[in-house]
């Protein structure tokens, strides 16, 4: 064994170890508590994907603001791994996985933003806390079903019976009294941040004003609660709890911050808490969690059967090299899944099909090499020389065909990206990744394995290579 092969072997074992530690990471947590759990796509865990389009022609910047508003609201829903992205100039793709009753969630997203000042009876609430208010006592985020995880799959179907309407589960927690109603906010009064007071303290202020009933109540409340906290809540999420400095006469006031950045943020929240443009649901895809679970089970069976058949075929047909290729194939599978979990790649049904198809591609590189190996052995070269020659000669074909497939994967990925057809993206990604990875397993792993068995006496047997005679081997065997 050459020292180069030993280094390769150490490298391979290291990669295998890392891959296995990721795949079997306890509770989906790996180094530095990184989340490496398996991400399942909407079609496998259930959920919704919608394409929202602006109802009227707008600037791209307005759409970006709208996407920001929606993203904040989804975070308010308490859903992990959601996706909000702009598509083209007037569309927003929203994906929310693993929630019950996804259509209602989308309706919540399309609703208008709600700014409230709430009476916390002197309590300071941490920014980001989701609260129930009298104005909006039943936020989706606090419904127990809204945070359902992938494990709660069988019951996760949308069920409607003839006699009863969908009754949302009542969330728990105190209901804070809203002093103001979001719809009473005078948007014209919300002005960009100004330097507050004498400017010596470097404070920034965002002016705002309420009208009607809200203005009157805000004035009363602040007059009675000077030096006590009052919380600003946007879409049921606490933004901050400033201390009331003075009564807000006429419902008019300003929010002061110490940095311009904070002030800008508050300004945006107030001004754009409401969606800047009405959005229409142009297309949507909903999959129930139970349908998804069935697909996961089916895919696992298909994957195992596929892997087993290929392994059996390789061993029966190519014997010793086939066995080594099967070991490399198992390694390939482990690394693939480790990469899916690390990157992370969201697994969809076509994505799994792409992976299973890539097993065939991974084997192809080996098949090409073994065909050359047999030719070289027949020609009378020694096993060692045949191995090296086989890899050199098979390389151009492997390289060119891999590049051609990678080109197609790139185009598929771009196509999928433009229209938010995440199913196609998943397929292109797993297939492309598989092809890149199979270059490594075929060219490095199988080669190192072959070099390793080369010095072993039993390996010098033509039968193991499905040959009657290998003239180059004989003297090696006799010498051994």
């Amino acid at each position, binding site marked *: 064994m050459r020292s180069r092969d030993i280094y390769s072997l150490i490298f391979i074992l290291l990669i295998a170890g890392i891959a296995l530690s990721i795949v079997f990471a306890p509770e989906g947590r790996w180094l530095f508590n990184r989340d490496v759990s398996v991400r399942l796509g909407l079609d496998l865990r259930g959920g919704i994907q919608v394409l929202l389009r602006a109802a009227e022609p707008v600037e791209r910047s307005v759409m970006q603001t709208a996407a920001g508003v929606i993203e904040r609201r989804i975070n308010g829903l308490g859903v992990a791994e959601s996706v909000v992205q702009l598509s083209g100039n007037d569309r927003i793709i929203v994906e929310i996985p693993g929630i019950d009753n996804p259509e209602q969630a989308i309706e919540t997203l399309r609703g208008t933003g709600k700014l409230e000042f709430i009476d916390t009876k002197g309590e300071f609430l941490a920014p980001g806390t989701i609260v129930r208010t009298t104005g909006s006592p039943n936020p989706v985020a606090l419904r127990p079903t809204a945070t359902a995880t992938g494990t709660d799959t069988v019951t996760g179907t949308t069920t409607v*019976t003839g006699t009863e309407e969908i009754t949302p589960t009542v969330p728990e927690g105190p209901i804070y009294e809203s002093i103001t109603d979001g719809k009473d906010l005078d948007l014209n009064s919300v002005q960009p941040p100004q330097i507050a007071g004498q400017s010596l303290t470097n404070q920034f202020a965002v002016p705002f004003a309420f009208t009607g009933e809200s203005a009157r109540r805000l004035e009363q409340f602040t007059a009675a609660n000077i030096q006590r906290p009052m919380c600003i809540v946007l879409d049921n999420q606490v933004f901050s709890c400033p201390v009331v400095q003075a009564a807000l006469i006429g419902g008019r006031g300003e929010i002061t911050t110490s940095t311009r950045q904070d002030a800008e943020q508050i300004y945006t929240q107030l001004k754009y808490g409401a969606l800047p443009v009405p959005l229409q649901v142009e*297309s949507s895809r909903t999959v129930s969690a139970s349908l998804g679970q069935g*697909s996961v089970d089916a895919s696992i069976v298909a994957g195992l059967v*596929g892997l087993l058949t290929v392994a059996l075929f390789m061993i029966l047909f190519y014997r010793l090299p086939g066995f080594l290729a099967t070991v490399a194939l198992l390694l390939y599978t482990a690394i693939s899944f480790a990469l899916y979990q690390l990157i992370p790649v969201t697994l969809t049904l076509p994505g799994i*099909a792409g992976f299973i198809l890539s097993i065939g*591609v991974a084997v192809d590189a080996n098949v090409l090499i073994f065909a050359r190996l047999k*030719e070289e052995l027949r020609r009378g070269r020694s096993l060692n020389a045949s191995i090296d020659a086989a890899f050199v000669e098979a390389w151009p074909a492997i390289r060119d065909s891999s590049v051609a497939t990678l080109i197609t994967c790139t185009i598929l990925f771009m196509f999928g990206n433009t*229209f938010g057809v995440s199913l196609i993206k998943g397929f292109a990604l797993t297939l492309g990744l598989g092809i890149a990875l199979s270059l490594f397993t075929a060219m490095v792993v199988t080669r190192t394995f072959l070099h390793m068995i080369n010095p072993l006496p039993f390996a010098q047997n033509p039968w193991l290579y499905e040959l009657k005679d290998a003239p180059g081997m004989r003297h090696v065997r006799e010498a051994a």
Partner: protein
Amino acid sequence: MDKLVKFRYWWFALSLAIIIPGLVSLAIFGLRLGIDFSGGALWDIQFVERAPGQLDTERIRAIFAAQGFEGALVQLTESQVDGRTVASAVVRTRSLSETDPEAQRQRVLSALSAEYGTVNQQALQSVGATVSAESTRSAVIAVIAACVVILAYLTFAFRRAPHPVRYGVCAILAMIHDVLLVLGVASILGVVIGLEVDALFLTALLTVISFSVHDTIVVFDRIRENLVNRRPTETFDEIVNHSIVQTLPRSVNTQLTTFFTLMALLLFGGESIRNLVLILLIGLVSGTYSSIFNAAQLLVVWENREWSRWFRRSAPPGAEAPAA
């Protein structure tokens, strides 16, 4: 095995025998477009309180029509709930309203459950008209872009071989063979088993393209290598024939392993990717065939400039076309 090249016109004839009926079907019936490309909505509904056979498509159609979805296409299936087999229906309608889809959905589900008891909406997809039109356009662009980029790459990869453009063009011709064959078969299957062309179909088609080129490259690579080590007495026909024979075991074995994995997917994989896998299976067989029996053979036709003989009365096209 040494007559693979000699029979080239028979191989071409076999390809045409499959492609032409497909093209005729394509011209008459076209493709059955799924909602990705034609727009519309697809409802997958489970009737928990009904056993298979207890549903009536006309009744379901009427319920949908009463809620504003006239002309719904209803297909009855069955599914499993807690180990029981219950009735399901896949209903295709026009797309949901853009302004208030949720209310519309609720009304339909309530109307269905008023008639049939508890219903579960398993999946619901709705694609608007503009999206589907744009998807169709970018699908065509994607296929053309794939062809152009692969042609450019092949010309580059075979730049050292004589006439590098020929390799690219012949690979593309084989690829067009596969695309036409898959489209034709999809059209026939659309008529026979109602196969729909959706975004996953396009995915399968593009994969078939890349795998077809993959196979062609392996054969061409051998030809390129054998041309370098050419013996003076060897003709181009012999070299191509020899190269095909050399790569045949690899082509068959790779085809078999891919075939095994796809069969596993077809038999055990999820229902929703069955069409994807079916198209892949057909396309991959076609891809391997076209790389051996079309792409490599076309190189011979080109090398011998045989088209100059096709229309001469003395030497009609056919298996007897003389080897140069």
